């Protein structure tokens, strides 16, 4: 990701949007090595180049999966071993993590760890689970001389005591995005901030302001796949729906949409007019559709730039229903 100058597109599989050919091109460009496309060889090359950094780095910066109140420890969960390298070799270790990652005891961490690895990668445990409790002790041959933990708020306390508080339970397993039909189609970068997928659609508006992430709570079908797979039972669709309600309450939706919905409400409350309007719309829609019965361009709307809209059948549902009832 760093070589490509990109940001991660998934919280536990940051390069999931890259193919082996993309990786091969990046390695040729930056490492000046002969091109290889075998995934094993590419992984070996990454190991070789990164190991030099691990061995020579002055400071290692890690995240933190959990913080344990009982012992003042930082828990890191990795498969690669990058977490261990970063916290064992450099002279200084800095860990950056959120205030909501604190767990009371080691036993609590063991319990949540079972949920995390199963939901994240389907493993009963990840290859490395590391607890770091302070810097190098007297006589130790390795470990950092200094260890600093930076505990970040960045909007998290804003959720406390509100109807969004449940989102703070998130353990960052990524199961919600793995099961999200929207995430699977648009990818992680489209969410525009650190956390993609359903949890991102809830956290981002809360952290950076509802008005700065206007599309995110709407980037969902509310199918509740995320709510079902979430190991800590965050009601993600409910939270996204509440955010949509807040957008409406605060008048953040665009005026065209508000006017359109008002018109529709007016029409829908009057059955006679509704029938007339839909009859006209179905016929106009049909005539706009070409020979292939598709509408290729909608005026003033970017929706048809990448795809076509099927044209209406020419008759309304109520007309067809009445016809079929007769026959």
């Amino acid at each position, binding site marked *: 990701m760093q070589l490509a100058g990109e940001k991660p597109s998934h919280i536990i599989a940051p*390069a999931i949007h890259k193919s082996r050919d993309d990786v091969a091109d990046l390695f040729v460009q930056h490492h000046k090595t002969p091109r290889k496309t075998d995934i094993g060889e590419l992984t070996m090359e990454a190991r070789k180049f990164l190991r030099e950094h691990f061995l020579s780095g002055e400071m290692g910066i890690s995240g933190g999966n959990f913080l344990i109140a009982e012992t003042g420890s930082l828990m890191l969960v990795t498969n*690669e071993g990058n977490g261990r390298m970063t916290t064992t070799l450099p002279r200084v270790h800095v860990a950056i993590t959120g205030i909501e990652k604190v767990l009371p005891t*080691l036993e609590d961490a063991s319990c949540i760890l079972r949920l995390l690895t199963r939901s994240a990668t389907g493993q009963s445990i990840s290859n490395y689970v*590391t*607890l*770091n409790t302070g810097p190098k002790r007297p006589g130790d*041959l390795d470990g950092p001389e200094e260890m600093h933990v930076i505990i970040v708020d960045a909007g998290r306390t804003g959720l406390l005591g509100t109807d969004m508080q449940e989102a703070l339970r998130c353990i960052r397993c990524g199961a919600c995005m793995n099961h999200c039909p929207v995430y699977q189609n648009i990818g992680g970068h489209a969410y525009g901030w650190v956390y993609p997928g359903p949890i991102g659609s809830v956290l981002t508006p809360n952290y950076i302001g509802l008005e700065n992430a206007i599309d995110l709570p709407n980037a969902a079908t509310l199918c509740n796949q995320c709510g079902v797979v979430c190991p800590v039972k965050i009601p993600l669709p409910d939270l996204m729906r509440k955010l949509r309600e807040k957008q409406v309450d605060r008048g953040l939706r665009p005026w065209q949409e508000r006017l359109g919905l008002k018109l529709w409400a007016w029409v829908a409350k009057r059955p006679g007019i509704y029938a007339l309007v839909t009859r006209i719309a179905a016929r106009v829609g049909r005539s706009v559709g070409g020979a292939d019965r598709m509408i290729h361009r909608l005026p003033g709307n970017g929706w048809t730039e990448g795809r076509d809209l099927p044209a209406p059948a020419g008759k309304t549902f109520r007309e067809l229903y009445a016809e079929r009832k007769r026959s």
Partner: protein
Amino acid sequence: MSARDSIFARIRAARAALPAMDETERAAIEGRIALHPIGTRPAMDWPLVPRFREQCVRMSSTVDDVASMAEVPRAIARFLAATKLPMRAVAWPEIAQLDWNGTGVTVEARAARGDDLVGITGTFLAVAETGTLMLLSSPSTPAATSLLPETHIAVVPQGRIVKAMEEAWALTRSERGELPRAVNFVSGPSRTADIEGQLQLGAHGPYRVHVVVVTE
């Protein structure tokens, strides 16, 4: 006002909307930390040692058995020869002081370096549930020995295999009192699926983990 003070002030302000934390709740939190009760966990009705072995294999470790500590050097020499690995290793002092004469393996008790190929460690204990080795750092049990070499060999006394991580914490508290700088749980070789989701063994840590169980 420091950042810490302002975060705590925001948390207290948010709590005003909730029922205030009273003495009972405070005592419950302190009691939880003091008693550290075991939470919900999967059924664990399997026999310890077979479970440990089976889970080691599942996590792509290899497992060997020896009857006593005295047999460990020869067993490791056999493994190194069979796997065509160099007969030279960096090890924890407790391993280096075993009798390696006549095995053909040169064992050095020192800090591991980036170019060491074989590292041999003991284990504080092992966890049957997940086939996991638990290593505690100390001057005589450095953490890098199980991390930098391409091959990690760990010696596990059979009596040190416990059921799950919760039992491991109980033993750590009773035997050590407090946690060392680093507690490392190791379950098989390092791995990644970063490129196209295809699993590869040997990312940044060892390519292979070989567990020698001492059954005495």
